[in-house]
């Protein structure tokens, strides 16, 4: 919400420019001087007839006085000021109205610069995606590697010093000549293709950096698995079931009381995921409308922070993070990972998942967990020698933005922004609480099984809009038959798949009627 435009500043400045006194102008307007003082100090909002009278008195047109331009400036700058990088630089969003009122030209220039930066950032991200996913480039690199392989292998044979028959020697010479020519051709093709452009790809956005580090670890952290197992053993030694054990552990090992807080009294904004830890009073407050699975997970999350502090700190130190904000974000994410490892012990959960053929609903029931918690855990079953089906994971909001992403090999998904509007993750919003499955085929012919479901981030009152997100698990169709979600699907049949893309700006499909944005590379 943008604060009211600083009309008061403009009234005061204009009045002074015209040489009018506050008392004199107030008298002309038929209001008290103290009321005009409040208006000029931006402590009273005004409108309607009084605003028109003031515009007349100050010889200004109505639009200039209402400050529509400034309002737009403030909206843009307020949005920018709330971004993590600006917060980190110490920018106070509350100072935006004052800044715009005092220095409108500087404010406009700053906003234009920030927008340009953001646009360039998106272009860099898109080009980075293109580098990673472009089928033409992938094919060209494959050819280069093949030619280099043939040359290297032949050279080794010739260098081996073995006496080769003349005919054979001539054949190997011919292979080197032929492959060298092809290699040069392929290399020139790549140079032409890039036309000397060289994008970079650093994010700087904490959530993206955390995602990148998880991806670099293939979504699996053995040390945290170990910590989660140890934590579970500790909890299992406490009588009374898992929830009681968690509360007991927090109280007895760390002096932390777990308390339910009424949603009537609490300011929901202060409760991340419906819970808040107050270090001063050593209290974990959980909103009383939180589901049992959320309540349990929030207790486990705090317990993991404390139980596995060293393992989490080591995992953060081993990652590549560019700011303290990103390291804080990583710490939270890794504590969630440890909590998940504790609540869904690796071996038992993998065994159950295989036995139930990855039926998420059945796993939810068995572990009294939410859809998102189960989906998240499935993605982390990547232990060498004991891995589950390789799943990717995406989470989207109703505006389309992807707020979490764990990609899969060969899955072309964008690094930032929205995905393809045809993905099941978006279809799921049309049928909340119902699972949507889809066989998706990408332009590079890669096929994936999509399983999407909406989740409610927190309960809402009747008068509030629902707080929905959509979560999607993704697996290569080659693994689909290990899951219940391939049942009844003939994966070899033509037409079973939906032609999709990564995102419109990267999608080469010329004939898609759902295109919402032009491709970054002309088609």
């Amino acid at each position, binding site marked *: 919400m943008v604060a009211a435009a600083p009309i008061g500043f403009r009234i005061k400045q204009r009045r002074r420019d015209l040489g009018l006194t506050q008392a004199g102008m107030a008298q002309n307007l038929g209001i008290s001087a103290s009321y005009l003082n409040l208006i000029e100090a931006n402590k009273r909002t005004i409108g309607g007839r009084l605003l028109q009278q003031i515009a007349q008195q100050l010889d200004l047109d109505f639009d200039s006085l209402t400050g529509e331009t400034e309002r737009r400036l403030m909206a843009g700058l307020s949005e920018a000021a709330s971004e993590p990088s600006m917060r980190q630089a110490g920018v106070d969003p509350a100072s935006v109205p004052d800044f715009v009122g005092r220095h409108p030209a500087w404010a406009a220039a700053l906003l234009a610069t920030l927008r340009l930066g953001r646009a360039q950032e998106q272009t860099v991200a898109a080009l980075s995606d293109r580098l990673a996913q472009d089928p033409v480039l992938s094919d060209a*690199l*494959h050819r280069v*590697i*093949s030619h*280099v*392989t*043939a*040359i*290297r*292998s*032949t050279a*080794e*044979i010739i260098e081996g010093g073995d006496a080769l028959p003349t005919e*054979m020697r001539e054949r190997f010479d011919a*292979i080197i000549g*032929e*492959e060298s020519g092809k290699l040069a051709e392929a290399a020139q093709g790549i140079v032409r293709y890039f036309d000397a452009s060289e994008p970079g790809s650093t994010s700087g956005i904490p959530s993206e950096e955390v995602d990148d580090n998880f991806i670099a670890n*293939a979504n699996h952290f053995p040390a945290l698995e170990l910590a989660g197992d140890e934590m579970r053993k500790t909890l299992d030694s406490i009588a009374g079931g898992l929830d009681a054990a968690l509360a007991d552990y927090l109280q007895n090992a760390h002096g932390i009381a777990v308390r339910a807080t009424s949603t009537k009294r609490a300011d929901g904004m202060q409760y991340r995921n419906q819970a808040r830890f107050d270090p001063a009073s050593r209290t974990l407050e959980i909103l009383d409308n939180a589901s049992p699975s959320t309540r349990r997970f929030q207790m486990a999350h705090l317990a993991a922070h404390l139980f596995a502090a060293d393992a989490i700190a080591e995992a953060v130190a081993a990652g590549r993070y560019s700011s303290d904000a990103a390291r804080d974000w990583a710490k939270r994410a890794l504590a969630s990972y440890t909590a998940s490892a504790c609540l869904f012990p690796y071996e038992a959960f993998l065994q159950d998942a295989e036995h139930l053929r990855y039926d998420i609903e059945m796993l939810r029931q068995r572990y009294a967990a939410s859809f998102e918690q189960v989906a998240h855990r499935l993605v982390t079953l990547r232990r*060498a020698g004991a*891995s589950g089906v*390789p799943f990717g994971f995406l989470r989207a909001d109703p505006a389309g933005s992807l707020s979490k992403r764990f990609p899969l*090999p*060969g899955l072309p998904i964008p690094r930032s922004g929205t995905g393809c509007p045809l993905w099941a993750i978006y279809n799921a919003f049309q049928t909340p609480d119902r699972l949507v499955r889809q066989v998706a085929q990408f332009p590079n012919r890669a096929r994936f099984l999509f399983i999407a479901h909406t989740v409610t981030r927190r309960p809402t009152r009747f008068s509030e809009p629902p707080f929905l997100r959509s979560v999607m698990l993704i697996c*290569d169709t*080659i*693994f689909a038959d290990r899951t219940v979600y391939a049942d009844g699907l003939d994966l070899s049949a033509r037409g079973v798949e939906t032609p999709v893309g990564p995102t419109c700006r990267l999608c080469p499909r010329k004939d898609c009627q759902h295109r919402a944005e032009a491709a970054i590379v002309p088609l």
Partner: protein
Amino acid sequence: MASKVLIAEDEANIAELLRFLLERVGHTTRWVADGKSVLDVAREWQPDVLVLDLMLPSLSGFEVLKAVRSDPAIAGLPVLMLTAKGQEKDRRLAEDLGANAFVTKPFSNTDVLSRVAALATG
């Protein structure tokens, strides 16, 4: 130990080089250039080792590997995958599907020979 090695590789020159290398040390080889033929030849010829390139026409190396592992007649066939350098993700996927060993392109001849020998002797 002389063994039967089936080579699935769509690049003719690479296939020719692999055959030369393997036959020079006493192995018997057969070569197929597309994914579908691998399965037919493997069932009929019963090789001791399959050298399988990832990028094959008709069926990819991944699909061939999955089909091999799910066919009782050839499920136990040791498979050496040829993957491209820098494609660690491919290697992970191949591991999940049951590949026994990997050689990264561009490979060294001695590496290929030692891995084939190790797979052939079990």
